[in-house]
């Protein structure tokens, strides 16, 4: 009786304060995000808005911009080079994201079991993240070397065709995705590991008692409880894949040209090599819209599959 009365009192107490609490919460909310948003506005948003205006100009960087309205956007529709870059980027994003998440999860599960030398392996698979781009480029270019490289040597011995790898669009796609996976999987693995290790062991023990096998445990316990991590990594992976640049720069350049340009590479080329900065910014805005659309979609869909605490 007394307990019920206490509960009622607490509820009344809480709801009485809801009104003022909401006002207070609103003010506090704005206050706590203010420093972050202020800095973000000054050092990012203003530049972004300025760039929107610049996308409506013809700007060769050295001289002031000249207004051209939506000409740049119209030009995009007929731009073969842009279409190629778009196609390349899309073609690498799908396998990269799918494979990367799968592989890093597999590695994380393997390194989450009680096998020996876990710490050693974790470091091993994380090392590409710490390796210098020049070292990455040298070794991988050698691996893909059509004449002297071991991959083609092995393929030759097996009687299989020996592609040109980095200078041929089709094989360059495969080559680039492999290197992207190689350099990114350790990073995601570590994040998955954290997510895995925080699933209470009791759940697995209970499932085992109930007679569930490893696969069933994975499907019913691991996967669902990992969804917040998976969601985060998926969003980040797609955003990063669509903006791949550094690797393209070191791996697929030959002479003065690039055999597998991505969108960001195209942006850089137009803006800083061809003196068409206004147009480059236009391409960047189109990319932003694409990424925004994908991300929004994922956030909408997350209600269906992500389980928060």
């Amino acid at each position, binding site marked *: 009786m007394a307990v019920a009365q206490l509960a009622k009192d607490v509820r009344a107490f809480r709801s009485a304060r809801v009104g003022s609490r909401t006002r207070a919460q609103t003010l506090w909310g704005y206050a706590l995000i203010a420093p972050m948003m202020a800095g973000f506005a000054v050092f990012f948003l203003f530049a972004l808005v300025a760039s929107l205006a610049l996308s409506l100009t013809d700007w060769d960087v*050295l001289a002031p911009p000249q207004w051209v309205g939506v000409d740049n956007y119209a030009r995009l529709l007929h731009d073969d080079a842009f279409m190629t870059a778009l196609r390349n980027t899309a073609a690498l994003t799908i396998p990269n994201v799918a494979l990367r998440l799968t592989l890093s999860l597999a590695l994380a599960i393997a390194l989450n079991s009680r096998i020996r030398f876990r710490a050693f392996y974790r470091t091993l698979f994380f090392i590409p993240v710490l390796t210098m781009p020049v070292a990455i480029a040298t070794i991988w270019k050698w691996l893909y070397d059509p004449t002297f490289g071991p991959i083609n040597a092995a393929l030759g011995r097996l009687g299989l065709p020996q592609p040109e790898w980095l200078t041929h669009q089709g094989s360059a796609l495969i080559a680039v995705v492999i290197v992207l996976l190689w350099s990114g999987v350790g990073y995601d693995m570590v994040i998955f590991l954290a997510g895995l290790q925080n699933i209470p062991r009791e759940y697995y023990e209970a499932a085992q008692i109930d007679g569930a096998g490893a696969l069933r445990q994975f499907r019913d316990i691991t996967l669902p409880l990992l969804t917040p991590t998976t969601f985060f990594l998926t969003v980040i992976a797609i955003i990063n894949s669509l903006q791949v640049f550094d690797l393209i720069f070191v791996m697929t350049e*030959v002479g003065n040209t690039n055999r597998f340009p991505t969108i960001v590479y195209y942006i850089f080329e137009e803006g800083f090599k061809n*003196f068409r900065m206004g147009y480059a910014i236009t391409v960047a805005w189109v990319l932003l819209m694409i990424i925004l659309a994908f991300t929004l979609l994922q956030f909408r869909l997350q209600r269906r599959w992500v389980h928060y605490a």
Partner: protein
Amino acid sequence: MSNHRRMGSEALTTLKTLVNRRTLLRRSAAGAAGLGLAALGGHADVDRVQAAQDGVCGGEEITITYGIWDSAQLPAVEAQAAAFKELHPNITIEPQLVPWDDYWTKLQTSVAGGAAADVFWLNADNLPVYAAQGALVPIQSLVDDGSVDADAYPESLRNIYTFEGTVYGIPRDFDTIALFYNKDLFDAAGVEYPTGDWTWDNLRAAAEALTVKDGDTTTQWGIASTLELQQGYGNFIEQNGGHILNDEKTEALVDEPAACEALQFAGAFIADGLSPSVAEQQANDPYEALFPAGVIAMIPGGSWNALTFSQANPAIQVVPLPTGEKRASAIHGLANVVWTGSQQQCAALEWVKYLASADAERILGETGTVIPAMEGLQEDWVGSIPGMDLQVFIDAVDYSFPLPASPAGPEWETKLGETLIEGWSGGIPPDEICARADEAADAALSAG
């Protein structure tokens, strides 16, 4: 357009007024003091007064920022800065080193953002663009009033830095192209070394004799038909009597018979297996790996390759490029230019004046890292590698052609190269390559 210019000329006017007033004051003060002091018989004081008069550009402490991209040349630049400081104690030169790969990104950003270096290095590709957009201060006046001896520099070089009749930069150094070859590989194959009298036929024959195959794989190539215009096909085009661009730099001429023949000559090396393929050159740079490692017998290279090659392999020697219809070798060199937005244009021009002088050029020569552009100062460089006949590069100046560049930017060259690479990888039928390359370059030139 005029923002930078207006700012520049305002600053210049203010500076000029200041200079005039101060010099006037100083001269009169010095005059009076000199008389007074002389009357007292103090020579040292007269000297001090004289020194104060020599403070150019207003006499106050000025710092000139100097943008450069090659760490190997920093000691030479610092030596020049020190010598300049002796001449003008009130002006300090501050070199700003930016890695080559990122130099242009940074330069464009700083020019657009309004804080570029006062004086900086520029190359042929970019001169027309920067000059056309008004980012550079013309140096014509220094040439006209004799502060800079333009005739001391090779004409082909000077032309690179003249835009629409106005001089914007004084060449600092130069490089030409010649043929490097590996003596050991020639000995092994029993082929006579290349000479200065070689023709295209000699080149082709040697390449064939020096290509070694092991079954299906090539273990050694006779020549590297490289994918760059400056070291490779550009020279063949000119040697055959063709041209890359027209004089107005508005149109590509690679589709003309002479030029096209040259392109086919270059492409044939790759198609016939005498040169590493495009894919191979992408995986392994011919200049950094394949040639020094002894897997290619001959390669057209620039004077800048000489030091590295000699250190990598003492068996490497050099001769002039072979003759086609005539001799030709691409010449290029970088120049010092002045930014229109500089707040210290007077001092910047003084620095450029000094850099164009024989003193400064001699310092360059002494360090042996580059060939000074001023005529007559090349002996130091020629003697810098005893085992190699570097005179070949100096002689090449006589038949050199300047690298063509357009105010629309270097995109035409990229597109041209792209098409050639596509063609030489087998992606375009051989008889269409010239036409497509010409088309691509033209499109880029008119896109602007």
